[in-house]
């Protein structure tokens, strides 16, 4: 389909290499296994595949005209038009990894600017060129902590407020690796998810303490005291953040974090049914050599021009091989570029504005929902744009009712977190209007009447 060769091309090339036909190129493959039949549909032309994809996509309900109150690690935010316009430039998206800096300054400078923005956003000193997503960024923080103590400290202490997928990913990476143990103290209520509870469990075998900010249930807590307790025992503190929240909230850097990770999807990256996303990873400058992944640094070229290169590459797998601290090869370059463009467009005032819109709308929603008979907000502490609602019926029933009316409700917590009862996690972003919130409340009242029959 995308192969330009004419029959004449093929014949003259075969002649040049002394082969009579294409099949002869594969004589080395054992005959028994050569040229299997692939049981696949015949190829489609562009118009045919367009039709096919239209058909398939029509079975999906996009958020274009649907209010969505689910967050839980992925958030529906407005994506400025300039972003897709810029990242659709072939010079950006069809470019390779910038291993030849002389012809890759576009990518390199954009990533350097991304690193700078992430450091500033999180209040830290150093950043890498990104990991795959928030979950793998948490896992890489665990890997860093393992190497920091040369494998001598075996415990990673994780808050019950960490996104469940992130905890699972961390376990996949590190549970039982060279004796590493991941400990996540259980909580029976939102209140029990606190830094004080974690402090009790830190000891001299702890390599890393990992908390989320705001946490999976939306709660905001100050980790300054926790940081002191962690450092007293010689361990590292990692805070997993939401980047929009940092438009308003005190930074983990200010609190004393050693590593800050997070999911960068809210920064202009489409929801895309779960990926590809963006793993933010920033640290204090002392830890930079232990950081895995690509890093762009500033330098000059042989003509005296300021320029950028991939640096500290000796840490990476292609040089250190089995001694590399991680096997990671790629970063999420195009998504890092997206995040940088998003933050450049919004700027200081824009990020503050979108954060405040999310905050205000979420608090309005919480207030209105709590007025409805049978519904109760479980969050006692300050929250950012997500909160937990205790419902009078199973959330799955409520969400079915909402879906029937063209609305996507909150994330059903009742299966994974049964101690919270019939609870759902509601997120409100700037994409939700007051009318949407009022409609939601109407339907919750309606549904409550239905449930009683």
């Amino acid at each position, binding site marked *: *389909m995308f192969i330009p060769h004419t029959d004449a091309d093929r014949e003259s090339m075969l002649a040049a290499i002394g082969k009579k036909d294409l099949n002869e190129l594969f004589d080395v493959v054992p005959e028994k296994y050569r040229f299997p039949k692939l049981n696949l549909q*015949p190829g489609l032309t*562009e118009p045919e595949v367009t039709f096919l994809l239209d058909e398939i996509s029509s079975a999906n309900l996009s958020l274009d005209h649907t209010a969505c109150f689910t967050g839980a690690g992925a958030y529906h935010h407005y994506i400025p038009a300039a972003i897709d316009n810029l990242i659709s430039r072939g010079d950006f*998206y069809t470019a390779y990894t910038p291993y030849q800096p002389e012809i890759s300054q576009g990518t390199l400078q954009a990533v350097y600017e991304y690193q*700078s923005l992430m450091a500033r956003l999180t209040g830290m000193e150093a950043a890498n060129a990104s990991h795959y997503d928030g979950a793998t960024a948490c896992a890489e923080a665990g890997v860093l902590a393992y190497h920091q103590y040369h494998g001598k400290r075996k415990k990673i202490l994780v808050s019950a407020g960490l996104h469940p997928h992130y905890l699972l990913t961390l376990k*996949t990476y590190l549970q039982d690796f060279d004796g590493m143990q991941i400990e996540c103290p259980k909580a029976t209520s939102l209140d029990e998810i606190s830094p004080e509870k974690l402090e009790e469990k830190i000891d001299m075998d702890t390599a890393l303490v990992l908390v989320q900010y705001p946490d999976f249930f939306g709660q905001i807590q*100050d980790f300054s005291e926790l940081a002191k307790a962690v450092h007293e025992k010689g361990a590292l503190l990692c805070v997993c953040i939401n980047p929009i929240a940092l438009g308003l909230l005190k930074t983990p850097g200010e609190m004393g974090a050693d590593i800050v990770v997070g999911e960068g999807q809210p920064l202009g990256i489409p929801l895309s049914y779960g990926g590809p996303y963006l793993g933010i990873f920033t640290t204090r400058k002392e830890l930079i050599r232990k950081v895995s992944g690509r890093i762009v640094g500033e330098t000059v070229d042989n003509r005296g*021009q300021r320029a950028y290169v991939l640096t500290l590459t000796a840490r990476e797998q292609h040089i250190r091989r089995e001694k590399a601290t991680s096997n990671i090869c790629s970063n999420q370059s195009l998504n890092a570029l997206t995040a940088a463009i998003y933050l*450049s467009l919004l700027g200081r005032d824009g990020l503050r504005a979108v954060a405040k819109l999310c905050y205000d709308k979420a608090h309005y929603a919480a207030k209105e929902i709590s007025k409805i008979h049978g519904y109760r907000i479980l969050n006692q502490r300050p929250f950012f744009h997500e909160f937990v609602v205790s419902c009078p019926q199973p959330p799955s029933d409520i969400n079915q009712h909402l879906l029937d009316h063209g609305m996507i409700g909150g994330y059903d917590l009742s299966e994974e977190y049964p101690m919270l009862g019939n609870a759902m996690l509601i997120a409100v972003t700037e994409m939700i209007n007051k009318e949407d919130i009022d409609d939601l409340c109407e339907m919750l009242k309606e549904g409550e009447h239905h449930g009683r029959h």
Partner: protein
Amino acid sequence: MDATEKTIFELSATGRKGFRFPSPDVPSSDLPESLQRKDLPLPELSEVDVVRHYTRLSRLNYSLDNGMYPLGSCTMKYNPKICEKAARISAFANLHPLQPIESVQGAVLILYEMQIILQEISGFPACSLTPAAGAQGEFGGVKMIAASLRDRGETQRKIMLIPDSAHGTNPASSVMSGFECLAVRTDERGNIDLNDLTSKCNERLAGIMITNPNTLGLFDENIVEVIRIVHQAGGLVYGDGANMNALLGIVKPAELGFDVMHFNLHKTFATPHGGGGPGAGAICCTEQLKAYLPGPIADILEEATEEVPPLYGYRMPEKSIGMLRSFWGHFGIIVRAYCYCMMLGAEGLRRVAEYATLNANYLMEALKQDYPLPYDRTCMHEFVLDVKWPDAPGIRALDVAKRLMDYKFHPPTNYFPLIIHEALMIEPTETESKETLDDFIKAMKTIAREARENPELLHQAPTETPFGRMDEVKAARDLKIAE
């Protein structure tokens, strides 16, 4: 003329406004002051500033839409534009991963169908699309081997054999799964040395990681025997599918005996490289290993009836090694790969392998007169040259690579595989025309001549590009990675 572009921080001006949001339609709520951040040091730019800045930056990049990247091991083939359009369809791009399953049936269908396609191409009965990249695919596959050995009570099997030509992610992934790496020699024909292999197969053997064709671009003439030897010793065979472009429709790796294999969607399946990512990986495996696949995996929860289509959903394999990342995988990338596969069909996929291999052999035949060719036999989709000219001893692979940029080509992969000291690994892919290949051959022959007649041209190269060679020592010593 200075090609430098200012940074967004240098372009910033206090008070400049870019994007504006609507005014709030709800009352304001207070955030406790102790939780507020004091300052937010982000730049202030107008939309024009931002668009011009990034447009100018983009012009400093070479890209595939610009010209060929003959990068061995990367499969830099053309990125079809219809695939970009597919990924941007609103009912794919604007879907929340946690929406009710009934509202995303079209999305889960694509994941399920892509799993089927990869299974058919590879010959394996099971597939997971959760890896975020090739390296994650590898990590997952190796962990599956570790989990399987643990279940068999064979934890004394700690050695993972890795050919000396292997990609660095192979040993790195092995170590991350708790294995010790032991190198296996490549012989003079570019095959795994069977004697060396046999001597290293014992009761401590966990398995071997094989790339076939290998990083020299050569199909192992003894591949079936290699796999048999490892299996006989009780080990498992991992396949690094980075070079799958040569095998589409030519051979099914599962039939050769591989136990588990990863694929790179951003290589073989034409999804764009994006300047370094995002890519996507896939892991396929045998019946015996499928319980260990990372999940969740797309599946049919309820079969179709006459009236209703099947209900698609997810399941976690019973002994899954766990989640490799959040949610379901790089759906946005998988949509592109799916679109690509549907356009190619069985015939189109086989043509890919045929023409990728034809192109590589055509280049190899033309260039071996001018550049030392360590392994002179029919290659697959790539081949390696060794820049060692006795009459131009001061010239290294690096110099040839840099000079190619003056001829408007991205250099091939250099200094890999490690077993060739001045390696240039060349993979044209099937989407390059004979004209482009002839231009490349001409440039390479000219550079070979320049190396003897005017070596300074190579040492100083590139001179025709916006930027010249970089001071990498300064970058590492005076480390500055954020503004």
